[in-house]
């Protein structure tokens, strides 16, 4: 059979030759300016939310992002509960925490795989994505789906974790921990990766404060924010885990933090599975009432915040959604200017925008606005630099 070829439009490959999205202006090898255009996937969700009930809204916001799909429902239901004052049952709080942490693991592994691809370590890409599969299997056992789990509702969760499943889940999470540890050690100890990523794309602490970045991007620059500890919610105040903070602000720190966080997430999940009390999983909230509320969640990329105003009906009067990348993506400009274009792809990826955005990159000539390098070229340059470094080390 002849080799058939497919090309996906959408999250994986850019709609080609368009100098939109991440634009780099260069002089010689150096990036002198950068810009980013967003909006290609603008679906008008905040406005749509006003014509959907609070219940339907949970499903709507779940689809904002496929990778961190549970982060938005997590923040939204808390915003609604902030208005109504609903007390969420303890078992539901633990289940919410478990789902949130499982998502952190799968999202960080996905990112590690992509970063591996960018620097030319395609084995890292295949391993990271292979080891993601057991995590997605756990999701399927708990919720029935690998993405978009439909677990959240205002007042609790929609599905319980069956007691008889827990021993199997504990075993599965032990396996996840094994390969997260192995991957973390392999990546962090690798001399080529260190040489490739240390000192690259530094975000200085003051810039991080001025730009109000969140999540691993903030923690890599010495800013000790983590919503799970600072504004405790769900069951996060009932489990032990560490905030992972580093000081250098470079690509290596951002990668290391994400890897180390997967291990903390395993710790949290294990404690939750063991400590989860019996009891109801739904407070059966009926009315939201009149008022306004805010919900926050530490998503894999950082703080998700939702603001909701309710006028007493079943439909939100206003639903503001702010994903972490909205604060983090603008910081890429300060980290990439002055760097070499062979690092541009990697530095942009280190911000971890929704990964589909990182593929949409181009280098543009300042005067003619012609595309000099496309996203694929930038990834290739990134991989070539790694080869050079490897060559120098042998």
């Amino acid at each position, binding site marked *: 059979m002849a*080799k058939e*070829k*497919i*090309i*996906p439009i959408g999250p*994986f490959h850019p709609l080609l030759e368009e100098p939109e999205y991440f634009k780099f202006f260069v002089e010689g090898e150096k990036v002198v300016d950068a810009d980013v255009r967003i909006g290609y996937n*603008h679906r008008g969700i905040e406005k*749509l939310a006003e014509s959907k009930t609070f219940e339907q809204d949970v499903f709507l916001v779940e689809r904002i992002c496929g990778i961190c799909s549970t982060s938005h429902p997590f923040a939204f239901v808390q915003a609604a509960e902030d208005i109504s004052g609903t007390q969420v049952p303890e078992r539901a709080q633990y289940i919410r925490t478990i789902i949130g942490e499982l998502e952190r693991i799968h999202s960080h592994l996905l990112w590690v795989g992509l970063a591996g691809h960018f620097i030319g370590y395609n084995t890292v890409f295949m391993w990271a994505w292979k080891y993601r599969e057991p995590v997605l299997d756990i999701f399927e056992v708990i919720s029935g789906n690998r993405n978009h789990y439909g677990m959240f509702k205002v007042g609790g969760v929609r599905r319980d974790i069956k007691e008889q499943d827990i021993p199997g889940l504990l075993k599965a999470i032990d396996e996840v921990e094994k390969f997260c540890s192995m991957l973390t050690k392999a990546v962090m100890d690798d001399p080529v990766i260190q040489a490739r990523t240390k000192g690259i794309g530094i975000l200085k602490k003051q810039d991080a404060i001025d730009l109000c970045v969140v999540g691993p991007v903030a923690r890599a620059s010495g800013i000790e924010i983590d919503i799970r500890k600072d504004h405790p919610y769900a069951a996060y105040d009932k489990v032990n885990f560490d905030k992972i903070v580093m000081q250098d602000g470079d690509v290596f720190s951002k990668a290391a933090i994400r890897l180390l966080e997967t291990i903390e997430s395993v710790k949290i999940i294990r404690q939750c599975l063991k400590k989860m009390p019996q009891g109801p999983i739904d407070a059966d909230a009926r009315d939201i009432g009149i008022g306004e509320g805010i919900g926050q969640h530490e998503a894999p990329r950082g703080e998700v915040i939702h603001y909701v105003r309710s006028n007493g009906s079943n439909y939100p009067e206003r639903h503001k959604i702010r994903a972490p990348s909205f604060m983090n993506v603008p910081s890429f400009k300060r980290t990439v200017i002055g760097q070499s274009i062979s690092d541009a792809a990697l530095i942009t990826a280190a911000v971890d925008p929704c990964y589909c955005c990182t593929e949409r990159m181009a280098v543009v000539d300042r005067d003619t606005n012609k595309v000099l390098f496309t996203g694929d070229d930038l990834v290739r340059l990134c991989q070539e630099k790694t080869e050079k470094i490897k060559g120098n080390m042998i």
Partner: protein
Amino acid sequence: MLDCLTPRHDVERFGITLVGSPRHADILLVSGIVNRQSIEKFRHVYEEVPKPKLVVAVGVCACSADMFRDSYNFVKPVDEIIPVDVYVPGCPPKPEAIISGIIKALEKIK
């Protein structure tokens, strides 16, 4: 969709590889909705794929736009812009379903 390329699902065993340009492609997988920013580029990419070509709509959004139909930024469902050969519903569809959809599309041109 990316999961189809990874070892567990491995779409390559069916003789399918990912290419970097529409000009080298035979099958187009479309996911998500088409909005005002992307409609022209979307048509352009479709034109670039040489004949014979197949289009697989992956996911409910590509099949019918689902919950985003009433958005002010929504234009038209995918199959009113370009002809679609196979629809793979789901939100998201499992990798096995996507591969099954691709195989179905291949059978159309055999």
